């Protein structure tokens, strides 16, 4: 799905950025999503946050053993 219409950035690209631990500002500098009309910023934030929540809810290595 295309999230940022101004720069044609897909949800897949944003999830990849999220996995690299990028913030909204990093994304705006990198693939430029959310940096023009700002219309997609809520969606960009949501995708980046989803990844943080997933990372935090993952059991730590010592807890898994």
């Amino acid at each position: 799905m295309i999230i940022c219409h101004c720069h044609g950035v897909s949800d897949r690209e944003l999830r990849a950025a999220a996995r690299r631990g990028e913030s909204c500002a990093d994304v705006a500098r990198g693939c430029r999503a959310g940096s023009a009309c700002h219309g997609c910023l809520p969606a960009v934030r949501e995708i980046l946050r989803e990844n943080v929540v997933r990372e935090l809810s993952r059991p730590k290595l010592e807890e898994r053993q």
Partner: protein
Amino acid sequence: MKGKKEIIEALNQLLTAELTAINQYYVHYKMCENWGYKRMAHHFRELSMGEMKDADEVIERILFLEGVPNMQRMNPVKVGETVAEQLQLARELESGQVKMLNDLVALARDAGDNGTRHLAEHGLLDEERHLDWAESQLGIIEDVGIKNYLAEMIAHE
């Protein structure tokens, strides 16, 4: 005729959804046309035009109730990158509209605004049909596979 404030606001929310749907279906129509899936493009074009007719009725009702139709507000337009994704987004969009219209029917009934209730009920049947169509297409894709499905979507009858 002066309408109730909450009804006009609910109608404006419905208008926002309709305007979003017009654009979402329209861009999917043009993308499918560009990919050569003429039959699919035709379906999306019809859906877009249908939503435009729905928006027409909603705007008329808001004006009749002496409200201001909000033509500026729009939800994010979700653009699918494949036909299957476009159908999933159509299902998502239509199920949102069905819920919104059911809520509007209840709101209008409780407010004693049966004209708006009638409009919402009429729209609800249309959106339910669209939702059923999207669900059926996704079901067919599951059964026959995306390649067979797309092969059927090339030629326009």
